[in-house]
């Protein structure tokens, strides 16, 4: 192990401290403001509330139907994640293990969708959903299903690309041996490749979930009262009369906790997944 010079330690300490302040200030603001009475957040900024109160945490459920939005977000994000991961596994396996005509075209096309400005296809997509609804009776506009398939395609390109990298790193001998043993390609994928690729799959899942949990633009046009997600619902606190900043902060914290907790729990996989996959 090479010795670390003192100047490096000092720099490290300073830089990392500054970064930590920068990173965590908003989180502390959220926490401290969510415990304040309303007059505190309407006046001069203060770190310590003039009186601690948990009222904002009770009020947030009445000011807007937060519980319903929460449930919607949970259903939409979870379903989008599961579908996205499954579809990405299949696609990535094909790209990684087979040489077929159109392979490159597929990769390039899928990746290039990442650069489409959302605003370009928002209205057309909306119209397509409505027309599908009219033609088949499957309600996509205003329903969770519409939002789910929209969101899963948002994370799909990056997920496929990351998993291709990951699968490429898994020795081919493994699945070839299984094929020789008489396993079909699908069984090989599910029994041999997927278990080895768990870190990469978890990483992709976390990414897909966060993408779906945080999207604002499509949610604002494609949902109604019954299917509105948190991303849109949270803006309702800035209501006609006032901005209830303490409630906004409390609600922000409440909606952040599940994702942040999940993310931090799984971050080990995320680093591992990225290490083995995408960044090769």
């Amino acid at each position, binding site marked *: 192990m090479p010795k670390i010079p003192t100047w490096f330690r000092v720099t490290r300490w300073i830089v990392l401290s500054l*970064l930590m302040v920068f990173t965590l200030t908003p989180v502390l603001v959220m926490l401290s403001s969510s415990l304040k009475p309303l007059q505190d957040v309407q006046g001069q900024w203060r770190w310590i509330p003039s009186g601690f109160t948990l009222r904002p945490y009770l009020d947030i459920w009445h000011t807007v139907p937060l519980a319903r939005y929460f449930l919607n977000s949970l259903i939409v994000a979870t379903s989008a994640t599961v579908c996205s991961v499954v579809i990405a596994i299949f696609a990535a396996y094909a790209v990684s293990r087979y040489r077929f005509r159109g392979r490159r075209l597929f990769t390039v096309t899928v990746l290039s*969708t990442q650069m*489409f400005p959302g605003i*370009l296809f928002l209205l057309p997509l909306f119209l397509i959903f409505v027309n599908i609804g009219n033609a088949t009776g499957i309600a996509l506009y205003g329903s969770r299903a519409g939002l789910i398939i929209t969101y899963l395609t948002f994370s799909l390109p990056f997920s496929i690309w990351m998993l291709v990298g990951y699968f490429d790193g898994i020795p081919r001998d493994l699945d070839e041996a299984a094929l020789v043993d008489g396993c079909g390609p699908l069984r090989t994928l599910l029994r041999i490749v997927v278990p080895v690729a768990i870190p990469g799959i978890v990483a992709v899942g976390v990414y897909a979930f966060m993408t779906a949990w945080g999207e*604002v633009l499509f949610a604002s046009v494609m949902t109604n009262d019954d299917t509105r997600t948190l991303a849109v619902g949270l*803006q309702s606190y800035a209501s006609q009369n006032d901005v209830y900043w303490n409630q906004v902060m409390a609600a922000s914290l409440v909606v952040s906790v599940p994702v942040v907790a999940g*993310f931090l729990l799984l971050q080990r996989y995320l680093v591992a997944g990225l*290490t083995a996959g995408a960044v090769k």
Partner: protein
Amino acid sequence: MKARLRRVGLPYLLLLPALALELLIHLVPMLVGIAMSFKQLTQFFIRNWSGAPWAGLGNYRTAVDFHAAVGQALLNSFLVTCSFTLLVVGLSWLLGTAAAILMQDAFRGRGVLRTLFLVPYALPVYAAVITWSFMFQHDTGLVNHMLHDQLHLTSGKPFWLIGGNSFYALVTVAVWRSWPFAFLCLTAGLQNIPRDLYEAAALDGAGVWQQIRRITLPSLRPVNQVLVLVLFLWTFNDFNTPYVLFGRSAPEAADLISIHIYQASFVTWNFGSGSAMSVLLLLFLLVVTAAYLFVTSRRRGAHA
């Protein structure tokens, strides 16, 4: 014969769901969007948009006529977005690299710190950005309280959400949100560098700085190639951050192109010209991405 067909068909079958969904959600709508950009799709026609009159290149001509107000506003928005993207990608990369390199060697509390650094990336966009907008309030915000009341750095309380400073507010929030991603990717990238490279260099008498320059940075090149591109695309197309920070009418200094186009289509109800602007944006991104990949791949090839 049948088995052969199955073998050839299998990869396509596996790709089918992904392909179908990408077609449905991205490609077909995009083509429809391109068709719309040639139409005069104002509020008079949205009810029956297929019957809207064709505008030919009219929407494009208006968009790129930089002597007229609409074109000028678009150009301004484009330039704002370019400088915003350059700053955000640059700073995020710098912070991410610095943190990743500084945390390459184990020290007490490294795990906790790494976790904390990832929090901005994990927070939902709207929750995080709403918090920033609260911090940037003129009278009640934390930023002005610190700058003016506590540190006495400014003579008066500056505005952050309106006027010229809004640009810096936006950059700050965007960097805060995206540097952890850079950090994450680079941390992962660093783990692929064999330890013995450093040890060999240390034996040769190379200091920390030289090790970073001669081993770390070159080894990170493939990560950087992808990372910078992804950051560029995400930042350039970012809609959520300015939308939550400023609402539907962003100040001129922070009028990012995504918000500008949103306003051109949804707020002023001219979907034809909004689509034309989006298509121009898409063309620009295509050209930049292709050029970037061309240049970086060639350089990578030359180095390998």
